[in-house]
Every structure is written in structure tokens, then in C-alpha cells.
């Protein structure tokens, strides 16, 4: 990848089956995590309380990013909402395991699986 093409963090979101899916691509660290935090806050402020964060294209995640996800979960739970994750990458899953956060988040293999699981819980 040429240097000028490097994108540290790319964020997008769309609605699927009544759930807001946040697509994250790139690196979530102390520099970029505030942008994800702002997006999650914006979504909650706009009434989206059922969130799925798709991390399949995340190349790096540190504790700052974990903190943002936990903060997002706390915000949606305040509205009886949910925040599930989609992630199959071992290097990303490892940090969730080290911190014990696998017990806090629902972590799924695909967006469809996350949505189906969420709907089944309702």
C-alpha cells in the first residue's frame, strides 16, 4: 500500500433488520479511538440503541479502543439496548480474552449471526 493510501481508521454505518451496523476498518488506538467514540455517541443520541460493531477489517485494537467499546455498551444499555461485536481475527480476540471482556460482549462470526442472535434474545 502506498503511503498516501494509508487510512488509519475508516468508519461507516448502515441499518440492517432494524439494527445499526457499524463497519470499522483500520487501526483503533489512542489516536483514532476518539472518532469511534464520537460515532457511537452520535448514534445513541440519534436513537440507535441496538448496535453491531463489525470489526472484521480492524487491523489493530488496543485498550483505548476497548474502553470506547465498553463505553458504547454502557450507553446503549442505559436505553435497554445492546452492542454486539463481529470478529473472527485471533489477534483481535486475544485482547478481549486477556481482559476478560469476552464475558461482557457478545462476539459473533458474521453480522448476520449477530443480528439473528440479537433478535432471538428479544
Amino acid at each position, binding site marked *: 500500500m502506498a503511503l498516501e493510501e494509508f487510512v488509519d481508521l475508516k468508519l461507516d454505518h448502515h441499518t440492517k433488520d432494524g439494527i445499526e451496523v457499524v463497519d470499522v476498518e483500520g487501526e483503533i488506538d489512542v489516536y483514532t479511538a476518539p472518532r469511534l467514540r464520537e460515532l457511537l455517541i452520535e448514534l445513541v443520541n440519534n436513537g440507535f440503541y441496538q448496535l453491531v460493531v463489525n470489526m472484521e477489517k480492524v487491523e*489493530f485494537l488496543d485498550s483505548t479502543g476497548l474502553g470506547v467499546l*465498553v463505553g458504547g455498551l*454502557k450507553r446503549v444499555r442505559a436505553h435497554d439496548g445492546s452492542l454486539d461485536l463481529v470478529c473472527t481475527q485471533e489477534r483481535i480476540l486475544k485482547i478481549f480474552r486477556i481482559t476478560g471482556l469476552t464475558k461482557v460482549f457478545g462476539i459473533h462470526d458474521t453480522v448476520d449471526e449477530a443480528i439473528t442472535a440479537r433478535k432471538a434474545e428479544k
Partner: protein
Amino acid sequence: MPTVEVSFTPLPAHVRTARLVATAVARRSGVDEALLDEVRLAVGEACSRAVEAHRLYCPAEPVRIALTDSAGRFEVEVTDAGAAGGAGLAGAADDAGQDSGRDLAGSAAGGAAAGPVPGGSQGLDHGLGLAVIAGLADDVQISETAGGVRIRMSWPAVGLQH
């Protein structure tokens, strides 16, 4: 004498650069490919908390990293000057930021593999980052110095590749 020394202005944007340099030197030192992700993450965590400490207490001071390859180990030492403003381990960066949701994360920390952080605080209150480092690095020492906090981490390395 460190193989590579890096010092950088305490800006979050520079943490990525520090990670990349550390990973590159680790690879050259012969650290197993399977461990490079751990090196990258642990160095990133150490630099992140150092940057936060410096931004709070001594923004004009650079964060320093020393990367050393010796005796079959690749060692990383991240030194901050946060204690100049009273940071130390007790004031370690609130890694989760304003949005931490400590009640949620705290419940998970009880089961974290990291356990107590040697020489200082433990759990999320004083740095999820430190817990991550403790869980990642093959060998880690966290100590307070006269000027701040020093985090030393090391991994096995097969030797310098020329």
C-alpha cells in the same frame, strides 16, 4: 547499549510510529513471527499510557523507548517522566478515557489473566493498558523511577539478523 532508541513528542499520532519501529526491530532481532502482534500491542499500550501521562504533566518532554537485542532476548523499555507532575503509577492514564464504563469493565477484570501489576496498581482503575501489557509480555517489570514510570518487557529472540 540499546540497538535502537526512539524519543517522540507525546502525541497520540506518534504511538503508531513507535509500534511500527518496535515491531520492525523485533522482527530483525529474530522474535518469532507469532509473537510480533504481542510486541506491537504491548509496546503500543506502554507508549499510550506514557503519552497520556506526559500530556497531563509534562507535554514538552519526549517519551523514550529503548529496544535492545541481547542474550537471546528482545527487550523494550518505555520510560516516561509523568512523575514530574505527580502522575506515577497511581496516576496512570485512564486508558478507557472518559467513556470507560468501569462498572462493566471492572466486572470483567476479575477474570482477567493479567492479575496484579508488579510494583504498582492493579485492575482497570489504574490502567487497562497495564493489565494488557502484563497479559501479553513474556516478561514484564513495571517500576516507578525518580522521573516517572519505566516499563520493561522482553520476548525470546533467536538473534540479530543481518
